[in-house]
Each structure stands twice: as structure tokens, then as C-alpha cells.
């Protein structure tokens, strides 16, 4: 919390948090901006790591992440429709701010989930769902590109900036939505630890060991949407954290038990997100570029070491 545009000493940060003697401006920056941002970083890291771990286990695919079900693309579509589509239709800016970027992203992500859920009721094969999710993402991506192509420069720029991700746009009132959504998502994830352990042997084995496949899948999807969907809605699509962190956790703890991996991933996710936030402030670059530059070497390292 000491890093940022204005240099604030650690001592001043401590005094502002504890209500000590400090310049009121400094205190406001620390409490209203930097504390909020740090809380957001913690939530984002925990949410993405937990949902990534769940998706990798459910799909038994090391390249699965929180976004495989098309949550990001759904959110992008929502935001694109709001930022790029609304001006095209001549809708006023007033309506835009009423719905809000976060609301649009949430609606988009939820819409995609409804489609995936409807499909997965009928389709038993988990790999088919994975492929359909990816195809849906690509299809939506194409629609978003089309919108980008026909938009004017200003809307386009604000949309592109959203896709770069930001931890700083969350306001204090919005935390009231972000905190419970992430906590509920994490709680559902923790409740799925035993099913996830069984699912490591594959759906057939899991079912013969007493797992109700449909119910577990629904809860895992629900948890992922709450976690990744909410984070994307408020902070934009933040890449690589959900993909890389579970791999690091597996190597670090040398364990395959979800009872160790779930809390371990959440903790590592928090650490990684805080580190990325500090790096992004120090270098004044968008958070997404930092997570990608940090996450990609991790994934490459894991893949090579695992051979």
C-alpha cells in the first residue's frame, strides 16, 4: 500500500490505518483508495486461483483455467455491447452509467453460463462441454471484434482499456457486492474438495465411488462463475493467474490432495496478485500485462519441468 503515484511511507500507512496522526489527504488515499485496492487484489487472487484449480480438476486438463467455460468472452460481450453497441444505437450516456460496466459484464457472463448449463444438462461427456465452451468463446470473440470494427475511436479505447484489466476501478460501495460474491464462491469451492479429489480419477471412477456427477458439476460451475465472473465484471479479464497458480501450488506442495491444494492455491493466488499489483504500480502498466509476463514463464517452467 506504500507504492503508488504519491510516495507514502510505511509509517504513514500504518498511522492512517490505525487512526494515528497523519495528513488527512494521506489518510484518505490510504483508506479509500489503496486499502480498497489491496482488498480487491486479495479477492481477485483468491477467486481466480480457486476457480482455476476447480476447472483444471473437473476437465482433467492442465490448460483449463477459470475462463474455459466462456465466462470472459461473455463478460466481454456484455461490456462491448454497452461501450461499443450503445453509442452506435444512439443511446445516451446516462443509461450506460446506470447499468454500469460491472453490471454489463455480469449479465454477459451469466448469460454464457446459462447456455453452458443448459447444454451440460443434455451432454454427459465433459470433454464435449470443454470444446463447446471454447467454441462459444471464439464465436463471441468474433462478435466482439465485429463491434470493435464498427465503433468510433473513443468507445474503442475505453473498451480496450477495460480488456487490460484494472484493480483500481472498484469503489468502496462495490466492495459490498464483490466481497460476498467471492466469499460465497470460495465457500462452494471448499465444499467441493471431496468431489474434486474423486474427480482426479476421472468421472467414471468418481461416480462408482459415490459421487453424484450432475450435482458436483453444477456446484463447481456455480462456484467458478461466481468467482471468475464477478472478478471479470469488476476488474476486467485478468489472465494467467487462474491458469498458473494451481500448477505452482502442485509443485510447491508436492501433493495432489485438494485439502492441501485448495487453500494453498488461494494463498498463492493472493500473494501473486498483490505482487502483480505492486509491480503494475511501480512500472505504471496495466495489471493484465504484468500477470501475463509473470504467468507465462511460470506455465512454461511447469510444463518443461513436468516432462
Amino acid at each position: 500500500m506504500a507504492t503508488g503515484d504519491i510516495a507514502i511511507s510505511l509509517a504513514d500507512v500504518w498511522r492512517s490505518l490505525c487512526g494515528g496522526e497523519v495528513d488527512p489527504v494521506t489518510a484518505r488515499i490510504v483508506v479509500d483508495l489503496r486499502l480498497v485496492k489491496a482488498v480487491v487484489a486479495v479477492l481477485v487472487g483468491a477467486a481466480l486461483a480457486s476457480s482455476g484449480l476447480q476447472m483444471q480438476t473437473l476437465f482433467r486438463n492442465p490448460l483449463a483455467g477459470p475462463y474455459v467455460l466462456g465466462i470472459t468472452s461473455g463478460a466481454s460481450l456484455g461490456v462491448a455491447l454497452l461501450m461499443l453497441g450503445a453509442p452506435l444505437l444512439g443511446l445516451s450516456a446516462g443509461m450506460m452509467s446506470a447499468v454500469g460496466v460491472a453490471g454489463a459484464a455480469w449479465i454477459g457472463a451469466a448469460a454464457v453460463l446459462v447456455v453452458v448449463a443448459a447444454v451440460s444438462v443434455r451432454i454427459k461427456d465433459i470433454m464435449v462441454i470443454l470444446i463447446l465452451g471454447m467454441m462459444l468463446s471464439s464465436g463471441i470473440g468474433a462478435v466482439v471484434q465485429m463491434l470493435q470494427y464498427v465503433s468510433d475511436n473513443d468507445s474503442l479505447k475505453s473498451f480496450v482499456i477495460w480488456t487490460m484489466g484494472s484493480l483500481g476501478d472498484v469503489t468502496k460501495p462495490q466492495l459490498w457486492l464483490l466481497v460476498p460474491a467471492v466469499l460465497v464462491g470460495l465457500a462452494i469451492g471448499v465444499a467441493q474438495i471431496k468431489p474434486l479429489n474423486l474427480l482426479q480419477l476421472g468421472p467414471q471412477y468418481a461416480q462408482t465411488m459415490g459421487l453424484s456427477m450432475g450435482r458436483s458439476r453444477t456446484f463447481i460451475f456455480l462456484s467458478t462463475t461466481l468467482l471468475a465472473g464477478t472478478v471479470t465484471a469488476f476488474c476486467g479479464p485478468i489472465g494467467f493467474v487462474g491458469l498458473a497458480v494451481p500448477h505452482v501450488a502442485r509443485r510447491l506442495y508436492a501433493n495432489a490432495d485438494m485439502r492441501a491444494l485448495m487453500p494453498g492455491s488461494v494463498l498463492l493466488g493472493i500473494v501473486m496478485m498483490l505482487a502483480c499489483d505492486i509491480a503494475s504500480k511501480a512500472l505504471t502498466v496495466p495489471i493484465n500485462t504484468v500477470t501475463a509476463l509473470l504467468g507465462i514463464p511460470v506455465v512454461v517452467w511447469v510444463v518443461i519441468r513436468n516432462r
Partner: protein
Amino acid sequence: MIRLEDLTVGYGSRMLIEHADCEFVSGRLVALIGRNGSGKSTLLRALAGLSRPQGGRVLIGGRDIAKMTAAERARSVAFVTTERVRIANMRCRDIVALGRAPYTDWIGRLSPADERIVGEALRTVGMEDYADRTMDKMSDGECQRVMVARALAQDTPAILLDEPTSFLDMPNRYQLCRLLRRLCRERGKSIVFSTHELDIALNICDDIALVDSPRLITLPSAEMEAAGHIRRLFFFDMGKED
């Protein structure tokens, strides 16, 4: 004891086995044989409750498996699939411990009794020295025995295995089948496994269930050989080349 009542299995409109009525008695090792694609795996999946039969019922210990909850089913029948399980960092002990899932709490905590059952299952298959090894560094035969131990830990009256010998060499095949026979004799379990090894089926197993689509013929091994079904199904075109 596994009982098939007027059981019909298949997929889509294609019926593989129709109106099968038979009993796999506790304490006897049953080999399920048949040509490729004849429906051995489909039948095993139906017996394990993984797929619904097209008709009829499967009773285990007198109860219809279609009417059991997933957890009740998991306490009645264990299944070893053809899938080769290799999970990085997962120790043999952890895999066998997963077999206790139908008995453990929401997070899968093992009680001292569970720990004892896991240890005993590993000992029964002769893998107690491998308990702390991870499966990605073990041979196929060793992995298969661990998966059998996992099924044992599930503590079910019935165990089904889908081609458990297919990745194994000759000594390992015999060793595994003798282990299965011992489990039947000593624990009174009802074990059915599908296989393409006719000599193993005839020499080691008590009964043979032969899929002669759409019939399922079940006879004690010696009678099955004498009845000529095996010769008709498996060796019918061998004479032509002489």
C-alpha cells in the same frame, strides 16, 4: 451376489445383450468373455450403475441398484475401469484412501478404522511397500494392483473389473487373477471381470459368462469348455486356413 433379471443392454437402438437372467454367486470368480464389441464393457457399466440398462434390473445383495443413491451404490459395488490412472504427486496410499469416500465425511477425513482398512487393502494386494510412492513412477502391473486395492478399500460385496489384465505381461496376468480368486474365496466377494484371455478364464475362474450376442451364457468353466460355445465363437474360422 449379483443378480441379472431380464436385463437388456445396448446403446441407442442397438441391443447387445437381451433378456439376460443369471446370478453371479458370492465367493466365485467370474470371467466375462466375448468378441470385441459384443457388449462386455456395456454390461459391466450397467452392473456398476454407470449407465441405465435398456430393460430389466440388476440386483446386488437383493437390492435394485437403480433404486439406490449414489452413495449406497458405492457401498455395494466397486469398479476398476480400463482407464490408466497416473496422477502426479498422488501416492498409492492416497488413491486407495479415495476408496473410503462412501464412508467419510464431507471433506474426506479418514478415521483410524479407515486408515486400517486402507493399510490392509494395500497389504492384501502386496503393495504395502509402495504406499508412499507416487503412481507416475510405477509399472502397469503395480498400478493395476493399487487400483484393485482401492476397490477393496471400498469394502463392497461385489467388485467389477473391465479388462484388468490387458496392459500386463503373462506372469502379472496370472498373479492378478489368482489374487482376485483369493479375494472371492477368502472374503466371499462376488467378482466379475472381462477378459480376452481364454486360458486364464478356463483355468483360474470358477464360472464363465459368455456374451454370444444377444445371449449371455453363464456356466461353470469346465462345462463351458465342454459345451462348445467357446470353440464356435472364437475358433470358428481357424480351420479354414489349414
